[in-house]
């Protein structure tokens, strides 16, 4: 597909041209950087590095109503599907994360809530030319300009964005604003490729994950897990803000006679996550919970779907209050194997 170019000062017009769809872009909401709907008077800036809250919350909201009912009633009113959305400025790691999670939600039985939103979303990515410190996407199969999961890849060329449509959905989006986009020249493409290469070189953290999927279960009784879990607070930061973590809880809520069944993010690091009603807990301490977290990402998920459930975005490293560093853990695991 032909590459296109958009002058930076026309970004606003570009967004306006997509008015049939809801456009989301990284914004500072309160004190947090997250994806939020773009409204007319807001200055859109794509200069944020990774958002604190990953865009998974657009396709897999933290809390989502599944259906409504009335106490004593027998009618179940399913939530209606949502609108078409465009996510602008998604980092390649977050887009890859969605294609990783797609595996799970379309496995065997389709999850209608996730897939409905996922199908109606167009991901316009932005290559990471200045990857933050704790990124390690190349180690887990991605890269600062990875195209997996994206519909369009944008690259910041200084005064303009290079648009590389990757899917029919991406092409359609470009057609909506065809008068703003100009064809890009060969030198633009070459420049972008060079920037991508340079960006990849800037990533310093790395870990070799070869052999982890088969090897991890052999470290079941290893002291590593104790070491990892000892400072762990058992909070949900690393899992809630992980773009590939997808576990959820289902709860019924009542208010007067109105009720809803909803689902919300859950974390394998919480005690109640696996707690049986009898009081028995198959994962009684943080040691087992951390072990499950790492195993799930690098072994179980690989067994089931053939991909690692980690995209190297570095959020869990950046935000962990006690410096539990997944790259560090994996290097220790590698050593122990």
């Amino acid at each position, binding site marked *: 597909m032909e590459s296109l170019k958009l002058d930076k000062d026309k970004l606003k017009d570009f967004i306006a041209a997509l008015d049939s769809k809801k456009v989301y872009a990284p914004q500072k909401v309160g004190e947090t950087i997250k994806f939020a709907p773009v409204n007319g008077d807001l200055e859109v800036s794509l200069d944020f590095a990774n958002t604190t809250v990953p865009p998974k919350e657009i396709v897999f909201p933290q809390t989502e109503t*599944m*259906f409504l*009912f009335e*106490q*004593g*009633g*027998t009618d*179940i009113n*399913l*939530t*209606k*599907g949502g609108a078409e959305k465009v996510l602008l400025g998604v980092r390649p790691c977050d887009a890859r994360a969605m294609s990783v999670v797609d595996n*799970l*939600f379309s*496995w*065997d*039985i*389709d*999850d*209608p*809530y996730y897939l*409905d939103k996922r199908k109606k979303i167009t991901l316009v990515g932005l290559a990471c030319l200045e990857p933050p410190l704790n990124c390690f996407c190349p180690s887990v199969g991605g890269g600062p300009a990875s195209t997996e999961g994206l519909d369009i890849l944008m690259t910041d060329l200084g005064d303009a964005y290079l648009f590389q449509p990757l899917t029919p959905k991406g092409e359609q989006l470009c057609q909506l604003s065809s008068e703003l986009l100009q064809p890009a020249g060969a030198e633009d493409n070459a420049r972008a490729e060079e920037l991508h290469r340079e960006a990849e070189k800037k990533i310093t953290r790395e870990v070799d994950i070869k052999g982890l999927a088969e090897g991890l*279960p052999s470290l*079941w*009784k290893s002291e590593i897990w104790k070491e990892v879990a000892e400072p762990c607070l058992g909070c949900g930061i690393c899992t809630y803000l992980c773009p590939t973590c*997808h*576990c*959820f*809880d*289902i*709860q*019924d809520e*009542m208010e007067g006679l109105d*009720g809803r*069944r909803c*689902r919300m993010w*859950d974390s*394998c690091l919480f005690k109640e*996550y*696996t*707690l*049986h*009603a*009898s009081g*028995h807990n*198959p*994962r009684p301490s943080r040691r*087992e919970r951390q072990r*499950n977290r790492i*195993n*799930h990402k690098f*072994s*179980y998920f690989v*067994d*089931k779907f053939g991909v690692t459930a980690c995209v190297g975005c570095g959020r869990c490293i950046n935000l962990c209050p006690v410096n539990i560093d997944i790259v560090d853990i994996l290097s220790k695991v590698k050593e122990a194997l």
Partner: protein
Amino acid sequence: MNEKVNPYKPYMATVQEAWYETTGDRCIKTLKVLFDDEEVRENWSHLPGQCTMIGVLGVGESMISISCSPTEGKFLRFSVMRMGKVTQAIHQLEPGDKLTVRGPYGNNFPVEEWKGKRIVTIGGGIGQAPLRPIIEYVKANRSDYEGLTVIYGARTSADLCFKNELKDLRNCDGVSCHLSIDIEEEGWPHYVGFVPSLLMEVNPSPENTIAVTCGPPIMIKFVLQNLKKLNFADEQIYTTLENRMKCGIGKCGRCNVGNLYVCKDGPVFSYATLKNVPEAFA
């Protein structure tokens, strides 16, 4: 969203009959349930060992095994121990009350593969509920199986489920039933002691036999040891696992033991599979 394909949308069902199997703090109640919708009733099919998410709107859902065999009729039966929030609400249901059912989920006991063999079920406490469908299934297809041995124990005689049915079993041809309680009681004619030792007492031969066990984790652990002592091969031993579940369809993530989801890959596992999963008996 298409209503027909939403796996989270439960079917409404009505309690037909309800009775207590046992009494006490953690009492067990059995519900006989019929789907409200004729079409659902007709299209429903399940096999022994499968589970459903049953629930009460406004309270929540729990994964409960179906304790009847499809050979018994167009209804479902659940035997539920009172434990948490949802099971408490289920215990309050009386005939005519509504509950929600979705499923059936998980795999089943390979009862078709077992044809021509003798089956030994070893249950403890509420663990008899998922074994009951096997018993009923074998009874209904009696000529297909060589025989059936039922080994079942509970803490006291009052904690035994399905008492009357178990009594009737003795009259069936080729079926033997062995009961036990943990503590000596006046007037108890059967074995006193734990289920694993009753198993040794009964001493079933591994020849052309399948052993299925279900009960508290500690019992399963010793039953498995004893079955090995009796020379049962790993492939001849089956058990079921349980974990906290929310979705039932392999999405919510919490029921995994190692790389297996209990709700999808289980709840029925052969010991040959489980012995390599380190988390299985945690």
